[in-house]
């Protein structure tokens, strides 16, 4: 029993991290109706910036203090993501107002390749580590209930709490502020949004900044677990089925779907894996997403597609 709980908890933690990346997709989709293929590249870029800045900063300012270095690196990396967001809107999206969705989609692919290449040119392409002082020790809880207790990673718990806080803040932002309403309006119709005085460019910069910060947080957490390297951009692929399962437009959907897939992956790997030769973890999420699509094309929480004919 305690092994099962450990598996589920482990799955929940991984799931939350998927949710974090999925959130980046959902944010940009909600605000511009574009599926942002560059989200993975943004995670990689942000994590690279964080890792390298933390390494370089002690040399620049001459203070050998990890906390100072990490804080400064975080701020610098966030500023870098803001600048990137501003540039993307200014140089690319601004010129594509009212264009076809396919055009915007291709553009995000272009942005993805550019960010991957540019990031590795500037920051290097080896494996780097991010050490933000996450507690690495395992803790054992519920010793009184089960024999041997339940083994937990403190790191995962901290990561989970950070993700949860970020998600709560975003939900508040979207549902309770007039900027949130403006964002939803822009997603529905660019032209109409402009005609009632919603500043399209400013809204886009805001969303890409928020998506950039989400990418940074996701990048730091994943990076401190796995190390920062090119494969981080591919973690975003693991988040794709999460987005589809949760519905492209739903912030809570991304969270719940992330948790479902995280737990599903781990449990199926551990309990079904031995019978089919293992490796379920890799495709489980996609199969689950496909099955959900059969019954609910808009995802679990997505806006129902209403079309009057």
């Amino acid at each position: 029993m305690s092994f099962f709980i450990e598996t589920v908890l482990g799955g929940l933690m991984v799931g939350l991290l998927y949710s974090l990346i999925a959130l980046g997709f959902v944010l940009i989709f909600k605000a511009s109706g574009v599926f942002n293929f560059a989200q993975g590249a943004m995670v990689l870029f942000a994590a690279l910036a964080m890792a390298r800045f933390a390494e370089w900063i002690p040399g620049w300012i001459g203070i050998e203090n990890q906390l100072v270095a990490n804080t400064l690196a975080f701020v610098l990396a966030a500023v870098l993501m803001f600048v990137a967001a501003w540039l993307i809107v200014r140089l690319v999206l601004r010129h594509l107002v009212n264009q076809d969705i396919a055009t915007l989609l291709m553009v995000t692919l272009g942005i993805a390749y550019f960010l991957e290449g540019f990031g590795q040119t500037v920051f290097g392409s080896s494996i780097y580590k991010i050490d933000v002082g996450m507690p690495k020790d395992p803790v054992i809880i519920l010793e009184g209930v089960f024999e041997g207790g339940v083994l937990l990673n403190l790191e995962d718990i901290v990561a989970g709490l950070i993700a949860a806080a970020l998600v709560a803040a975003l939900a508040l932002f979207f549902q309770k502020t007039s900027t949130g309403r403006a964002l939803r309006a822009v997603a529905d119709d660019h032209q109409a949004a402009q005609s009632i005085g919603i500043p399209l460019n400013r809204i886009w910069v805001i969303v890409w900044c928020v998506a950039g910060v989400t990418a940074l947080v996701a990048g730091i957490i994943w990076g401190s677990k796995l190390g920062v390297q090119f494969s981080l951009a591919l973690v975003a692929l693991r988040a794709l089925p999460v987005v589809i399962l949760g519905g492209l437009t739903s912030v809570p959907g991304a969270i719940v779907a992330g948790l479902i897939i995280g737990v599903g992956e781990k449990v199926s790997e551990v309990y079904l894996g031995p019978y089919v030769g293992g490796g379920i973890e890799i495709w489980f999420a996609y199969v689950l997403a496909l099955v959900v699509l059969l019954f609910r094309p808009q995802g679990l929480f997505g806006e129902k597609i209403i079309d009057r004919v």
Partner: protein
Amino acid sequence: MARKIGDVILDLKNVSLRFGGVKALTEVSFDVREHEIRAIIGPNGAGKSSMLNVINGVYTPQEGQIVLRGERFTKMSPYQAARRGIARTFQSLALFKGMSALDNIMAGRTLHMKSNLLAQALRWPSAWKEELAHRARVEEIIDFLEIQHIRKTPVGRLPYGLQKRVDLGRALALEPEILLLDEPMAGMNLEEKQDMCRFILDVNDQFGATVVLIEHDMGVVMDISDRVVVLDYGKKIGDGAPDEVRRNEQVISAYLGVGHS
């Protein structure tokens, strides 16, 4: 309350608009006076929507000027137009489909919202009070347009006539001085058309807004507008009171065709 037609508020001078080799508008000039209902009519493809899009800043004319309350523009953006009190509705509906009727109209208040993001997210008393004030204003518009019953319905689910009303409501929420209506009665049945006419007259009367409207169907327009501009193939062929325009030879031939002997 007798409505008083004031001075010229919007003046278009020699506006020409081309898309490549296609001349959408050729040297069109006309003015709009404060508080009047000004119609732009013409057959299909006459350049009516282009004209509206020029006023609203969606298109930038190659030549000519727009003078708004004495201020000259050669270029305007939809956002600037909104800030300067010009609101519009759309011919092919452009509502925020996933949002409720109420949220659509609330979105129209964007420019009037003052409190900052943080205050709103945390529901500080000042921000909360502001939200309530806007909500009260929006409820007045909802009452005015008689759409109380569909307040919470996602607009994508509403029948066409009601969507048109929500579109009008969203434009009204901006508290515009000039309201541009792009074929407000297209695709409506007679009853819906009559309702829409009543709303337009009331908007003009109660909200004091200047109305510029495009229509395809001459009959309706003649009854409600003060002055009418007639366009054909991007050129102005008539301008004046409805009765004058109705007797204009060029207008009659544009609508009925010229006899070739």
